[in-house]
């Protein structure tokens, strides 16, 4: 939260009055536009209010003051204009009644602004009140456990022993055994993988790990790796890997 938003809003109309507008039908400060509309010198139906809003926002942004929350008074004016405009756009019989005299329009706008100002005053009061009240701290400590439970004297039977029986039944229940018979139980013999490696050493002299496990499933690959470690330990073979994740070259060791 910015420091700015903590402060009661400063009156944004000062800046507002000087916001320059360059619209199709009007060029000049915003204040003047309002007055012209009120005096019916500019047709509200011709004014693109979105352009007015954009011009205002751009102005604030350029000044590094963009704080829409503080711009409420501007927004109220725009809202009032929108309301006026939408009423003007309504076709038919009511139009006559909507021909607001400049004086009437000013009074209507003024009434809204004054109403808003009252609540802004109340908001300022709330700000100050909260700041001064915060120095009072309320306790947040929970009740000590011994005060949190019912006393023996005050206790009445509220639970049924059957609840415990039910819980026990649930605990004694075992899940049905999963039938594993359909599962293929691959068995890979370490002996056979040792023999395979020795065969390769004998026939090729050196080979890669990839070649040793060509076409093998994961289990076979794992057992092959294990067999490889066994033969390394016994000195029957050595290996070399030139780079990380590179190919592992396997060749006969000294004791062979």
């Amino acid at each position: 939260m910015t420091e700015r938003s903590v402060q009661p809003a400063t009156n944004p109309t000062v800046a507002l009055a000087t916001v320059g507008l360059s619209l199709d039908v009007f060029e000049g400060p915003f204040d003047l536009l309002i007055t012209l509309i009120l005096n019916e010198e500019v047709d509200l139906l011709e004014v693109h209010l979105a352009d007015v809003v954009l011009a205002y926002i751009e102005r604030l942004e350029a000044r590094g003051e963009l704080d829409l929350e503080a711009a409420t008074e501007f927004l109220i004016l725009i809202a009032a204009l929108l309301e006026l405009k939408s009423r003007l756009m309504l076709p038919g019989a009511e139009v006559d009644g909507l021909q607001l005299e400049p004086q009437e329009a000013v009074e209507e706008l003024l009434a809204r602004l004054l109403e808003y100002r009252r609540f802004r005053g109340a908001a300022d009061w709330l700000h100050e009140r909260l700041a001064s009240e915060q120095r009072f701290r309320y306790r947040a400590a929970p009740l000590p456990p011994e005060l949190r439970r019912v006393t023996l004297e005050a206790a009445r039977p509220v639970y049924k022993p059957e609840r415990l029986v039910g819980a026990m039944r649930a605990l004694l229940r075992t899940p049905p055994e999963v039938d594993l018979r359909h599962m293929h139980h691959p068995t890979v013999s370490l002996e056979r993988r040792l023999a395979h490696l020795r065969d390769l050493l004998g026939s090729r002299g050196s080979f890669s790990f990839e070649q040793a496990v060509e076409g093998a499933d994961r289990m076979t690959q794992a057992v092959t790796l294990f067999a490889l470690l066994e033969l390394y330990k016994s000195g029957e073979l050595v290996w070399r890997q030139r780079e990380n994740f590179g190919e592992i070259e396997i060749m006969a060791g000294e004791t062979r």
Partner: protein
Amino acid sequence: MGPIARQVSALLFCALEPVAVRELAEALECEVQDVDEAVAELRETFAEGGSGIVLREVAGGLTFASDPEADTAVRRLLSRPRTPPLSQAQAECLAIVAYLQPVSRPEIARIRGVNSDSAAATLEERGLIEEKGRSQFGAILYKTTPLFEKLFGLEDIGALPDFKAFEPSVEDAAELRDKLLRAGEQRVS
């Protein structure tokens, strides 16, 4: 301090929320009047600048708080952040709900001249306002909560300042009216 005053004090110390006199009387199995007398006694012992603990009457009940004079030390000891301040939008929205409750979201937006849903949602999240049914047109109505009264140190919602206190001065109103007309007159002349 009399026995009832001592027990009321103990009850308020243990309870985390303000307790109404009637509830205290029920817990102590005594008359409301006895509690009233006890409270009068407590007000002396637990006054500001008295014992470091202050008796407060907020949100329709009684509660203890720490003496504001210790605020700096409390913050140093607990490094507990203060409740985040209200943004301008939240404060305005809260002021409208506080004075007009129950009030609908569109009404808040009309007065502020800007959609206030996010401010209202934040206030609701912070527990300062809550929904209170729907208007005849189906809009959510808001009212303030007991937490609002507690945090703003209000005995009840009637303890808010008279709304007339915020009436813009006649001069301000006149100035505003002038401002709306002046530019036009300049133009005309």
